[in-house]
């Protein structure tokens, strides 16, 4: 049996229930691991040992009294530093919020607490979730546990790296253009981006509100079902939250066994795809075929426009969302301002990093008088066409299979040009524009022992199906049994 900190929730919960293991012992093991590997990985902006142990002790007290709150009771879960936890730092990995302490809980935080999870630490990310490598953090770059000279992906790179390194049992991230799935692929863990509206965004620092969605990173698909079940569901504090009946995702896994009709979008296998990743995904497709699934080639003809539509829509929304950081009510305030208006200019100049400034500038430009129709309005129309592509494809298939990332984990500093970095997201962005659920599951390693991710894209609010399809692949493979070798 592997170390405690590498085990999935499902197994740990069973051991906690039999009292063979206590939540305090488990949390101590995760904290000890965190302290041992953090100097190499750098996944956390901060963590509060006393607070985590206090939560774990409370969990043990509940269990001793026969009042366990379920599978997550006593499980250490790390949160990306864009998700609010009352009285804990909330920085978005930005100097702008370096000293901000959250006065309230995000809805996902409230729900994890209600499920008894031990909330452990503030996980690093690209500043304001803008990036694909976590190098845009104002505090430190996070390193990939499989090769610490490489990035963990982004923007939720702290969430994927911490999980891969055994510094948490599950984590949450947020996904606006691939920020859960791409780091999950690069770090060899499961990452789920749910349907837009399934999970409340209340208490999530906004980047691009029509695209942002919170989701879990876990070791197994079953664990993703457990965490999703705890955090999904309608919330009156998010006007875009969907009133859907939430199934018991974990129980549903056993009732859905296929075979499924799976679509292969030909546009996702073209130029720029690393041949080793292409081969691993082809093998996964062959696996499904052997399981009796019907495999069909489908076309998503507007795929080549996804990146452009995304960088207009997302930056436009970001320029509006980030207008609130003016140095007046909270956040960084410049000490070098001539007057109140100059204070806005100086506070934002000092508080934001280069990528955030670039995206605000681009978003401001595409919304500005004279350019709105040519850029923003046109991008919104192309978004309609991109969504229609998926709707058309789903007339014939249950889900789509693609690579998650065109390339495996790259070296720190390798992609200094913004456009080159943006191309990391070509297979994940369309899903956000169309509001769909998608999951990345480990599907092998390159010759250089870097993880490869398989992306499965589902139909809106059909997470139960998507998870079952992903689990049928996982059951036939043992990729998650392998762990990075951090000394």
């Amino acid at each position: 049996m592997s170390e405690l900190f590498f085990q999935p929730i499902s197994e740990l919960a069973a051991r906690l229930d039999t009292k063979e293991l206590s939540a305090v012992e488990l949390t101590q093991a995760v904290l000890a691991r965190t302290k041992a590997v953090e100097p190499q990985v750098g996944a956390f902006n901060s963590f509060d040992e006393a607070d985590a142990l206090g939560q774990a002790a409370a969990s043990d007290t509940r269990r001793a009294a026969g009042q366990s709150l379920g599978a997550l009771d006593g499980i250490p879960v790390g949160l990306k530093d864009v998700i609010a936890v009352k009285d804990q730092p909330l920085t978005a990995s930005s100097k702008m919020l370096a000293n901000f302490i959250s006065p309230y809980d995000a809805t996902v935080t409230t729900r994890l607490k209600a499920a008894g999870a031990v909330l452990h630490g503030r996980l690093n990310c690209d500043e304001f979730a803008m990036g694909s490598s976590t190098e845009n953090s104002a505090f430190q770059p996070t390193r990939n546990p499989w090769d610490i000279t490489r990035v963990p992906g982004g923007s939720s790179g702290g969430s994927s790296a911490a999980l891969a390194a055994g510094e948490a049992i599950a984590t949450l991230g947020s996904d606006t253009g691939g920020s859960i799935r791409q780091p999950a692929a690069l770090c060899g863990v499961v990452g789920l981006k749910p349907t837009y509206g399934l999970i409340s965004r209340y208490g999530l620092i906004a980047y691009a509100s029509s695209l942002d969605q919170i989701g879990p990173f876990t070791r197994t698909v079953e664990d993703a079902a457990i965490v999703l079940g705890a955090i999904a569901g309608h919330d009156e504090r998010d006007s875009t939250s969907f009133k859907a009946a939430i199934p018991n995702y974990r129980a549903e896994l056993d009732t859905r066994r296929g075979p499924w009709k799976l679509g292969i979008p030909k546009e996702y296998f073209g130029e720029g795809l690393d041949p080793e990743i292409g081969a691993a995904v082809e093998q996964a497709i062959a696996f499904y075929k052997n399981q009796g699934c019907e495999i069909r080639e489908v076309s998503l003809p507007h795929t080549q426009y996804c990146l452009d539509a995304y960088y207009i829509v997302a930056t436009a929304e970001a320029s509006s969302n980030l207008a609130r950081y003016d140095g007046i009510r909270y956040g960084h305030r410049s000490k070098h301002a001539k007057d109140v208006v100059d204070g806005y200019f100086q506070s934002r100049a000092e508080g934001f990093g280069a990528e955030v400034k670039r995206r605000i500038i681009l978003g401001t430009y595409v919304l500005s008088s004279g350019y709105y129709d040519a850029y923003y309005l046109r991008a919104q129309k192309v978004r309609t066409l991109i969504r229609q592509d998926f709707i058309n494809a789903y007339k014939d298939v249950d889900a789509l299979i693609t690579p998650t990332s065109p390339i495996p984990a790259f070296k720190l500093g390798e992609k200094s040009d913004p456009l080159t970095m943006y191309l990391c997201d070509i297979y994940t962005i369309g899903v956000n524009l169309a509001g769909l659920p998608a999951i990345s599951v480990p599907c092998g390693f390159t010759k250089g022992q870097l993880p490869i991710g398989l992306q499965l894209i589902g139909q809106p609010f059909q997470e139960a199906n998507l998870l079952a399809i992903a689990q049928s692949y996982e059951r036939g493979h043992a990729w998650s049994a392998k762990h990075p070798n951090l000394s």
Partner: protein
Amino acid sequence: MSAPSDLNIDRVAKLARIALTPEEKAIFSQQLGSVLHHIEQLGQVDVTGVEPSAHAFAVDNVWQEDVARPGLTVEQALRNAPAQRDNMIVVPKVVE
């Protein structure tokens, strides 16, 4: 579509309320020029008769009963203010 050279960095930075250094202006102009050049290809898409999508799904306005509920205390609300005095946020002088 407009040409990428249309990006007047001074004008846009002013609209965005960000003071940029001359070095930032030069590098952002060049980098965003490449991004805008890539974006030009959206001009090839025939969008005649296509409705714009602000969200992936139709989003309706949501109304709630106007009922007072517990919120943040003054102390909690001011906890992150850069400067405060007498339960108020201190700001630079606005009117001379």
